[in-house]
């Protein structure tokens, strides 16, 4: 394989060399043949299997990520745009996150009660629901909703800007579109998702409190004392830390898909769709890794 690539690279280099050494630059037809041969050599190196395409995509995402880290620390800092995006992603997502969080807390409590009642452990209901929501369900469900709402929005917006040449217009006016569009959105997503998750957790616990009182009578004080006693530092910190990675993944995937979209208006839909799919997948992968790391550190 290495030998094959090496031979083709050598072929391209030889063609380049011949092209430079060509005595008659005006001879366009001769050059066309040279370019054609060079293109043929390049085409031969193009990926032809799904596996090749996968690794190339991974490499491109890696380069995109590295560019983010390179640009994020370089002036100029687009503070206003970052704040604007934070507002749009965070504040504008509050109603959706609140409704979802409340329903999850309520349903989880109602569904868990019969099982715990059968075991004679109904009094553990608030503690069990709280641990479930704060450690796992709150972060993951909120991140998935965030991917659906914000990830697809970023993908569609940037793809649309690409199609209508707005990104090119930024380039020609001397603005760095990567910094203005990509860096600000990834930063905003990374910072806003943890706050949304904390908010969703609180609303979820409120929903659980309502669920507990549908078939019983639990005082507010007793409910929250049980929750606080059941939770410790090791439950809260890893759950919050992983949400930064969830937010980063959602922002990164949305921006990557939108910024690199093509195929015109069809590409806009594809960018939005694939942004949601891959961001959701990334959330589960990161969650799995985070759980493994947390377990290793706790044991």
């Amino acid at each position, binding site marked *: 394989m290495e030998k094959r690539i090496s031979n083709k690279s050598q072929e391209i280099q030889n063609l380049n060399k011949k092209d430079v050494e060509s005595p008659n630059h005006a001879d366009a037809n001769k050059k066309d043949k040279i370019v054609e041969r060079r293109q043929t050599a390049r085409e031969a190196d193009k990926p032809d299997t799904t596996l090749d395409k996968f690794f190339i995509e991974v490499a491109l995402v890696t380069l995109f990520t590295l560019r983010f880290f390179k640009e994020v620390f370089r002036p100029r800092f687009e503070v206003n745009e970052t704040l604007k995006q934070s507002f749009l992603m965070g504040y504008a997502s509050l109603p959706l996150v609140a409704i979802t969080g409340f329903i999850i807390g309520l349903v989880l409590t109602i569904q868990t009660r019969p099982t715990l009642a059968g075991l004679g452990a109904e009094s553990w209901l608030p503690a069990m629901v709280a641990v479930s929501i704060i450690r796992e369900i709150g972060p993951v469900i909120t991140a998935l909703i965030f991917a659906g709402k914000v990830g697809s929005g970023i993908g569609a917006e940037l793809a649309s800007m690409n199609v*209508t040449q*707005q990104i090119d*217009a930024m380039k020609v*006016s001397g603005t760095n579109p990567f910094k203005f569009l990509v860096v600000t959105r990834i930063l905003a997503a990374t910072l806003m998702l943890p706050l949304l998750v904390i908010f969703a957790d609180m609303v979820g616990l409120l929903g659980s409190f309502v669920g507990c009182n549908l078939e019983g009578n639990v005082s507010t004080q007793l409910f929250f004392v049980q929750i606080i006693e059941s939770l410790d530092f090791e439950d809260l910190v890893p759950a919050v830390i992983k949400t930064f990675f969830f937010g980063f993944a959602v922002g990164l995937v949305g921006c990557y898909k939108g910024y690199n979209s093509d195929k015109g208006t069809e590409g806009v839909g594809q960018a939005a769709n694939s942004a949601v799919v891959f961001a959701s997948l990334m959330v589960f992968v990161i969650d799995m890794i985070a759980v493994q790391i947390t377990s290793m550190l706790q044991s």
Partner: protein
Amino acid sequence: MVTPEITNQNKSDALKEGSVVIEMKHVRKSFGKNYVLRDINLVIHKGESVVILGKSGTGKSVLIKCIVGLNDIDDGTLIILGQDISELKRDARNELRKKIGFLFQSGALYDSMTVRGNLEFPLKRQAKRPSQTEMDHLIQEALSQVGLSAAENQTPSELSGGMRKRLGLARTLILKPEIMLYDEPTTGLDPITSKEISKLILKVQKNYDTTSIIITHDIECARLTANRIIVIQHGACAAEGSYTELLNSKNAWVRSFFE
């Protein structure tokens, strides 16, 4: 009334001694197997208004995108304002881009911003950001140049096709470019609006002392704006001259553009 081609021809003769603004030598550009620019050689002097004609797909738009840096050339030499772009680093290229205005065919307006927002955007991203008073002055000046003073608070979606082109032009002019590139400025417009845009191009040329390259299929626009016309065929310069010269060309294919 003096016909534009006569006026422009005289101007072109006077400019031959002027400084070279853009120089392309054996420029080539391909996309995959499709080589769009095969061997472009041209020199454009300060103050010239050059129209590039050619059939669709002959690489006219790619040519000006190479000049502004949206596409990189594969081979050859491209010198803009005395700087070889292949030797420039990213920051230097960005600085050079600020001296080049580009009017997109679609306008490429920022839909999420108002007319004023579209004009403020490039100004706010200058290394030396102008004060609010200076910005207000520049915005008013650019809008009045293109006749859009009353539309300051409208959004691009509320503007007509001609107004969108004017706004695109105002957004470009606000940075006071030395070179203006127009990508089919009259496409999709009615004949009256097309003529207005053509006159606007001449007005900009005069008021801002720019060098213009205009890609167009609109012969009337070419007649009004050009003091030199270059015809591109198969990715290379096939013919060159004033409007009158090409109109009377011995080459039937060249003449066919003007019929």
